[in-house]
């Protein structure tokens, strides 16, 4: 695995391309991203459909919403997840659904399939594909919620009352389960057992990815070993890519498009997700003006690259040097260390690689407004 990553990187003109991309960092990434996604939303029509509305308006979730109010003032992660649904730019939240819809539209109607009627399409998308996009969102959201379960044995006084943490967990479990259950019944209604199997396997992938993520994020792990770049990519695919890749593929299957379209759609979803994750991992390294407090995960892509480039021993030294009195690493010191070597530029290169791979995957689809939007999204993840 490792050699492939490296050869792939060395194939790319590291010096010149790397520099050029770096010069783009000053342009503010997120707003550009928002624009690309919200433009795309207009192409596919209003993305929120009946299924997620039904979920949001259900007795069960309004019950949760009521209870979540009790968590205000506590440290339970469910609170910030819930806040994210309301206040965060929703472009990130619904990105997966929008991409599934764009992909459906870009592939177009299938005139060969007799049981699919073109007149059922709404802005070029079959109803089943719309439902699939919703299901993708439900699953993604369910795991945002389940990611935020707190281990009660790790509870400390600073987290607030233990009772609140227990209660927050209960709400997080129930609402995540509720979303997942609705995804299951939604999937069943698609009347395609291949799609049910594919998306169920994506749920399994997500679980495994998050499980790895958890064990890598422990402090102990970042000191003792951590993963190499190839493993990082594998795990990131599971936790951040499999759902979108398989949903894109499933959208093709629902329109009975051939294996090759399915393969390309999968490829677009996979590379786009990996590029997107690299992009967001790179953000703290990009916009650091001096003196501003920075923080990043020690399993972020640039750090993983850096660790692999400088070797385990150097990395340990650097970690120790950056150690402050409060047992928290001084992130600006670490950031400088990562920046001084090729860790960051390697991550940028890998990001561009995935962006390009995503672009490449959709070239076989006929030129259209939807395809352009997919291209814009793929380009946007390589800009910072």
């Amino acid at each position, binding site marked *: 695995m490792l050699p492939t990553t490296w050869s792939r990187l060395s194939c790319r003109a590291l010096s010149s391309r790397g520099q050029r991309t770096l010069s783009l960092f000053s342009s503010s990434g997120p707003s550009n991203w928002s624009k690309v996604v919200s433009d795309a939303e207009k192409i596919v029509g209003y993305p929120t459909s009946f299924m997620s509305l039904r979920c949001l308006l259900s007795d069960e979730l309004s019950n949760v919403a009521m209870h979540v109010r009790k968590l205000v003032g506590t440290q339970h992660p469910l609170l910030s997840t819930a806040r994210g649904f309301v206040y965060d730019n929703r472009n990130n939240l619904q990105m997966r659904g929008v991409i599934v819809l764009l992909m459906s539209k870009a592939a177009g109607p299938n005139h060969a399939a007799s049981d699919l009627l073109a007149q059922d399409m709404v802005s070029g998308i079959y109803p089943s594909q719309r439902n699939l996009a919703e299901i993708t969102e439900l699953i993604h959201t369910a795991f945002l919620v389940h990611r935020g379960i707190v281990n009660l044995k790790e509870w400390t006084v600073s987290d607030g009352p233990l009772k609140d943490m227990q209660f927050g*967990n209960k709400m997080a479990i129930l609402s995540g389960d509720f979303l*997942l*259950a609705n995804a299951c019944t939604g999937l*069943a209604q698609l009347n395609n057992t291949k799609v049910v199997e594919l998306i169920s396997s994506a749920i*399994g992938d997500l679980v495994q990815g998050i499980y790895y993520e958890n064990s890598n994020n422990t402090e102990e792990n970042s000191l003792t070993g951590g993963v190499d770049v190839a493993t990082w990519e594998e795990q990131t695919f599971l936790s951040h890519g499999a759902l979108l890749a398989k949903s894109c593929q499933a959208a093709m299957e629902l329109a009975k498009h051939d294996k090759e379209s399915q393969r390309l759609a999968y490829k677009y979803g996979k590379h786009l997700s990996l590029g997107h994750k690299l992009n967001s991992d790179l953000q703290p390294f990009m916009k650091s003006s001096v003196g501003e407090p920075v923080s990043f995960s020690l399993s972020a892509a640039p750090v993983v690259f850096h660790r692999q480039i400088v070797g385990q021993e150097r990395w340990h030294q650097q970690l120790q040097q950056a150690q402050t009195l409060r047992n928290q690493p001084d992130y600006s010191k670490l950031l400088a260390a990562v920046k001084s070597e090729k860790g960051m530029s390697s991550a940028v290169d890998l990001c561009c690689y995935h962006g390009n791979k995503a672009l490449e995957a959709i070239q076989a689809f006929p030129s259209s407004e939807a395809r352009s939007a997919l291209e814009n999204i793929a380009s946007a993840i390589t800009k910072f």
Partner: protein
Amino acid sequence: MAGPMWRQCRRWSTNCTSASLLETLWHFNCRSVSFSASSLGWPSWSSRPGNEGQPSSSTQINPKILNFTSSLNRHKSRLLYPTLQSCCCRTLHSDAKLKDPFTLAQKDLTSLYDDIKKELFVSKEELKSLCDYYFDGKGKAIRPMIVVLMARALNIHSNRAGDLLPGQRAIAMISEMIHTASLVHDDVIDGSDKRRGKRTINEVWGERKAILAGDFILSAASMALARIGNNTVVKVLSQVIEDLVRGEFMQLGSKENENERFKHYLEKTFKKTASLIANSCKAVSILVNSDPEVHEIAYQYGKNVGIAFQLVDDVLDFTSGANHLGKPSAADLKLGLATGPVLFACQQFPELHAMIMRRFSSNGDVDRAWQYVLQSDGVQQTNFLAQRYCQEAIRQISMLRPSPERDALIRLTEMVLTRDK
């Protein structure tokens, strides 16, 4: 001394005046079984004055319960129970080869846990051991047992050899997987630290990993389900997953009104326990037979046995010793849940009402509620209700062509009622 006396009076007055839950329940029950009930020496309210005088009001109060257990009501076959009993006994004594359900189902279940572990394909060792944790062969596997017996009974009913179809075998496995996935989540929600005599997953590995393990088992079940390749079957079993969650949500709230409360309890019981059994039975039926009436028989058997099973479980929470069920007794009360015995006891001891509403959260509530339940007829009444559900299950399954498996399913209802763990 004054206390008990007062309670006696109070109890009498409740029985006499309020057109309450018991009454409504009784009304739909007694329309079909007042005969057998009184022969069972059933409590005073069965022969209480005025009972015959006000049937309309109480049946009106209760259309939803009636609907829920409509099958109990639909067939006013007073004689059904004795008839069945004798028919049951006849098979019992004449068929020398008759085996108990566990033995009969055994041949189809030998590889159950191995098959499940194969479905739980995951490379990370730790996650794998979490997922396999409860598939250690120590569970009762009662759901797969019902499913394979039902499948064989239905296959014979449908003029085939009894042997299981691959899809039916898969459903037996999936039913246990869905059940286990929900157990794993329930244990986190309830903060349980023991299950089947061992530490729970959340106790050993923490809450976050436990939730992920549950999610993983569910995804594996869902994949296996999809591979059966039958859209109707996928829909039927996906409904179960939704029911399980909705049932869990229903446990969060309590209803002020007593009739509402009992309806709520039965509906929750259906969703949390019976839906899985009912729909698994229906799924194996869909795979072998195209007749919706046969699917309905399978479904109704599963539903009625499932509800009876849970009612008995709720009774055992009060009557069983601490170690029997692998969980401490009065566990439900401690979780704030008012189950059948409490709801019935509340009829005789209205003091329970306030405790139910505050979910037994005040100091001493659990002990007091426990005492009230034991002093009341709550346990017997819940058992009686369970009996009624079992009778209906027998009535349903008896519509299938006779087979050893069908008769084992009939016997199973007895075992559900008499189990003490």
